[in-house]
Every structure is written in structure tokens, then in C-alpha cells.
């Protein structure tokens, strides 16, 4: 029994938690945008952009004569990823809010552009190859805290992004439900005309929503690259779309998203480690079954929950003052 527990706790704390944080960050990003009324399927592309800029910065920082501490590089990488995501999402915000264009189209453009830019820049200016290699271990063990019972594992061999992610979850939830900005964001997604009539600048709020979403998705992309894709080649393997699915399963509510991110990442990791988790390795299912399990579960949950969807009512509609 104790061995099973150590297998499981390894799977959970080394892998499920960091994956959950990535999905959570990106999903919360989607939440910011969609609750303000703008569909954001560009999460995938923004993640790639965040990961690409973070990889580039860390790549050059590592080449310095006197390289700084690894966690400082991580911190700078995450910040740069977040900022680039913030700026990159401006294009989507501009098209969706100012130009009132189709939000799917402009987001798709971002999704197509980001990997292409990565390959072009990596090839031409950075390493001369498709991928940017910053391979080393970026895990961190916090002294003292890692010796605590129960929460100890959360502080050993973890990633800096885990703590940032948790802090952001708390801050965002409070912002969302307890502050004026949160209320305005939500009102713009539900009934922009009513919001407008009360003197709220719908365009501005939506800009904030989309670009905050870019910030979080960029941060999530950087966190993913640092944790799991140190030889970054311009792909995040659909995690951005997955985060979108979690957003919908979580009914556009931060804490529900957290629950779904936990459940999904747990299944994701358990399915990939089925061969080494004691009680699972004795069950002889084909590995394809395990590998598809988390996705099948997401699909089922999506199908189940989409019946009683609580999507923001004005989601996807450009705000038109004259329309009633």
C-alpha cells in the first residue's frame, strides 16, 4: 500500500500539479476574455507565443558569461512570456472590439501566426534550428517548507510557476467576484447594452478582458515550456484548446475550472504512468486505452455539461451600440 501511495504521490506532485497549473492559468485566461464577451480560441497561439519568447530569453540568458541563478531565469522567462502574450492578444482584441470582426477568424489568425513566427525566428536569428533548446532541470525545492507534513511534497521538486499559478487563482477569483472591475467584466459579457447605459466603456472593458487573457495564456505557455518542453519547437500540442474545453466544462467559473483542471490533469498523468503505478500496472489494458482516457472523459463531461450551459449571454457578439 505504501508503495502505491509513493507511486501516486510522485505522479501527482511531480507531474499532475504542474500540468494542472498550466491548464488552470490558460483556462483562467479564457475566462477573462469570454466573461467580457469575446470568444478567445487564440489561447493556443498565445501559449506558443509566450513559450517562444520565454525560451528565447532563457536561451540568451544562459549564454551570458556569468549566468544568473536558474530560478531568476525562470522568473524572467515567465514574465516575458506573460508580457508577450499580453501584447500579442492586442491583435485579437483590436479585431474583435474595435473592428467588430468575426472573433473566430482573428483568433485563428493568431493560432496560425505564432508557430510560424517561432520557426522563422528560431531558424533565422536564434539557434539556426527549428527548436530552441534550453534543456536543464528547472525544478525547485523550498527549504523548510518541503519538510512539512501533508503539503511538503508541494514544495519539493516543484516549479516556480506552481506558486505563481496558485497566487493568480486566488487573486483572480477575488477580483472577479469582489471588485468593481470584476463586476464590469461580467456585465459586459452578459448584457453590454445595460452596462453601457450605466456609463461603462464596453470597448475598454473588453480590451482589458482579452489582453488579460493574453497575459495569462502567455504565462501558461511559458510555464509549460519551462516544465515540459525544454527543446521548444513551436507546439503546445493542443493544450490551449484543452484549456478552452475546461473553461466550458467549468461553466465559466474559476473554482469549477480548478476542479476540472485537477481532475483532468490527474487522469492525464495516471494514464501516462499506468505502467509504473502499482495497482494499474497489473491491469493489462492496451496502452492506447490509457492514453485516450483523459480525452474521452473530457468529451463525456463536455457533452454532459453543455446541456445546461451557462455561457455569458453576449459571448461572441461584437458590441453594436445601435443594436437592441
Amino acid at each position, binding site marked *: 500500500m505504501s508503495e502505491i501511495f509513493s507511486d501516486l504521490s510522485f505522479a501527482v506532485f*511531480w*507531474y499532475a500539479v504542474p*500540468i494542472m497549473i498550466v491548464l488552470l492559468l490558460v483556462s483562467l485566461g479564457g475566462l477573462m476574455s469570454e466573461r467580457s464577451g469575446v470568444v478567445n480560441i487564440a489561447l493556443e497561439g498565445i501559449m506558443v507565443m509566450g513559450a517562444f519568447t520565454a525560451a528565447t530569453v532563457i536561451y540568451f540568458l544562459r549564454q551570458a558569461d556569468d549566468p544568473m541563478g536558474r530560478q531568476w531565469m525562470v522568473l524572467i522567462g515567465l514574465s516575458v512570456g506573460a508580457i508577450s502574450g499580453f501584447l500579442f492578444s492586442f491583435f485579437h482584441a483590436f479585431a474583435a472590439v474595435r473592428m467588430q470582426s468575426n472573433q473566430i477568424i482573428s483568433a485563428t489568425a493568431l493560432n496560425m501566426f505564432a508557430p510560424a513566427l517561432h520557426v*522563422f525566428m528560431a531558424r533565422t536569428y536564434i539557434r539556426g534550428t*527549428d527548436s530552441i533548446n534550453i*534543456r536543464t*532541470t528547472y525544478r525547485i525545492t523550498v527549504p523548510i517548507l518541503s519538510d512539512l507534513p501533508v503539503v511538503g511534497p508541494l514544495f519539493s521538486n516543484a516549479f516556480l510557476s506552481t506558486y505563481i499559478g496558485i497566487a493568480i487563482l486566488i487573486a483572480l477569483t477575488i477580483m472577479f467576484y469582489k471588485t468593481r472591475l470584476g463586476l464590469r467584466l461580467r456585465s459586459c459579457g452578459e448584457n453590454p447594452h445595460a452596462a453601457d447605459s450605466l456609463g461603462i466603456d464596453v470597448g475598454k472593458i473588453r480590451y482589458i478582458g482579452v489582453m488579460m487573457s493574453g497575459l495569462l495564456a502567455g504565462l501558461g505557455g511559458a510555464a509549460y515550456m519551462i516544465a515540459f518542453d*525544454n527543446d521548444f519547437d513551436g507546439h503546445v500540442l493542443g493544450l490551449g484548446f484543452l484549456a478552452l474545453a475546461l473553461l466550458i466544462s467549468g461553466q465559466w467559473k474559476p473554482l469549477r475550472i480548478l476542479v476540472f483542471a485537477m481532475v483532468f490533469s490527474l487522469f492525464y498523468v495516471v494514464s*501516462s504512468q499506468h505502467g*509504473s503505478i502499482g495497482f494499474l500496472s497489473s491491469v493489462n489494458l492496451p496502452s492506447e486505452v490509457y492514453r485516450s482516457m483523459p480525452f474521452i472523459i473530457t468529451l463525456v463531461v463536455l457533452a454532459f455539461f453543455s446541456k445546461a450551459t451557462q455561457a455569458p449571454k453576449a459571448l461572441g457578439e461584437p458590441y453594436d451600440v445601435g443594436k437592441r
Partner: protein
Amino acid sequence: MKRILLVFALFLFGASLAACGGVDDVEIALITDYGDIDDESFNQGTWEGIVEYAEEHDIAYAYYRPSEVSDDAYIEEIDRAVRDGAKIIVTPGFLFSQAVYTSQLRHPHVTFILLDAVPEDEDEGVFVAHNTVSIFYDEHESGFLAGYAAVYDEFTELGYMGGIAVPAVVRFGIGFIAGAYYAADELGVTIEFPDNRYTYLGTFNAGADVESEAAGWFNAGTEIIFAAAGGAGGSVMSAAEDISAWMIGVDVDQSANSDRVLTSAMKALATSVQLVLDDYYSGKFPSGQTLYLSATEDGVGLPLENSRFRNQATVEAAYNAIFDKIADGDLIVPSNYDELLDFFTDWELGNLPITRETVGG
């Protein structure tokens, strides 16, 4: 805003022109398979061979990247290379068999070098035309050497992760099993290489799932994983770094990619392409032939000088001895599951713990 976009578009357009510069006068062309010329693996090995040869002999060369992995896209790129004047087209990879079958007939005056496959049509079957040469590598020998060296380096818990179960990947795995158990028998040690430590990932891409799976194995005691999985091998490297375990690279010498690469099960892609190019230019092109490059032709092997064996001298001596044995034909390495079973019986290696369903082939 529009102006900014326009400038940006012009910039990209200019950059793309620059990237295509000089393509209209090509003699040797590479069509890339799944991945790119800098995949640190199969395409790159082939490409480096071409570049080196062409630079040395002052021949124009270029590569073409198909828009997707499909016969039509491959054929389209081959046509494009031919239009650009290519006389020799190198196609690395199993997935090219149909495309080369079609193209060798369509362009009889162009020479094709097909690696890892024979030209094959769904209806007409296999046909290597006069303007084509097929090159196979004995990956099972390469895998055998990797497994053998790992066990001689005192690794006792082994694992294998293949990308997708294409023939070359399966042969690497079968050879690896045989090499590991053969060495264990010679040394009289017991090794752990059970059925659930042999898998095909279903992808050649790096990702959290691959890293998590590899880390799970390492955490449960596996000491070394042989990853014949293209880019996904990078995820195995990351896991090995996190947990201070080891991995074995594939196709080309991957020692520079990570400190945790013990050695690499190489195929002499660059050398073999250069040899055939040399034959072509000296008028001795092996027209219509299928070549099998094994240890005998130095077509497979480990990069000893860049390996990180803990017992370098011991492993090197053992490696050289077994390599000669294989090269001289004194030891036949199994290349499919039936031969693997026979190999276990012939050498009295005990029960083969890995099942046919797991290995395939």
C-alpha cells in the same frame, strides 16, 4: 494600423524570398520526411551527409519540405525538385515508398535514393526501378549493440520507448531486447526488462505525457530507457535529467542534447548517402538495387568517443569484441519477433518476458 500590417506583410514576404533564394538551380535534393532538417535525428543525419558531400564537390543542393505527411504532398515536392533541375533526389524514411514508386517511373532520368524503404505500390507491389536505389539499415544490430553496452555498463533495469511502431522502430526494439539479455547471460547477471517496460508512444513529438511516462518508469526503478522516438526522445531526456537517470539516443549521436544520454544507437545515414552519391558520380550507381547496411559495412554502431559509460574501458572492449562478431557474421541478431524467440532458445537465455502483442512485427 493597416500600414503597420502592410509593412509586416512585406517584411515576411521578403524574408520568405530570401529563404528560397538560389533554389532554381539544384542538383541534389532532399525531401524531408515527418519533421525537418534540424530534427536532430533522421532528416538531419541525411541532410548533413548531403551538405558535406555537396560542399566538398561544389554541387548545388537544396531541401524541400512537404506541406504534410501524405503521398500526394511528397510527390508534389518531388515534382517541384525535378522542375528545379534536381538530378538526384534523396528521400529519407519509410513513408516515402509510394511516392518514390510513382516518381521513379514518372521521372526516369532522375535518380532516387530511398532510405529505410523500398518503392512500393499498393496494387503493383515492390519495384526498384533502374534509376533508384533502396537503402536499409540493420537497426536491430544498432539496438542490439545499445542493449549490450548498457548491460555491460552495469545497468540492470531497462526500458524501451519507441515512437510509432514502423518497421525501423520495431527492429531497434527487438535488437535492444536481444542485446540486453545476451549481455546479461554472458555476464551472469539478472536484468529486469519486463513486458510493461516496452512500449510504443504513438507519437514522435515531445510532450508532457511522454515525459511523465518516462519519469514514472524511472521513479519505479528503471535505470535506463532506450528511446527510438524522434523528438519524443527529448522528453525522455528531460525526465532522465529530473530524476538523474539515463537514456539512449537514436539514429544520430545525440550526446550533445543532454548530459543524460549514455550513448546513441546510430545508423550511418550521412556516410551511406555519401557513399551512394560517390558511386553515382563515378558512374557506379547501384542501379535498381536494395542495399542492406549492417555492422559489416559500418552502417550501424555506437559513438564510443561521445558515450558516457561509467565503465568506459570495460564497455569499449566488450563492444569492440561483439561488434566484430556481428560484423563477421558469427552472431546473427534477430530482426523480428520469431527470430527473437529463436535467439532466446538458441542461446538459452531463458524465457522471453516481452510478449508478441507488445512488440508487434
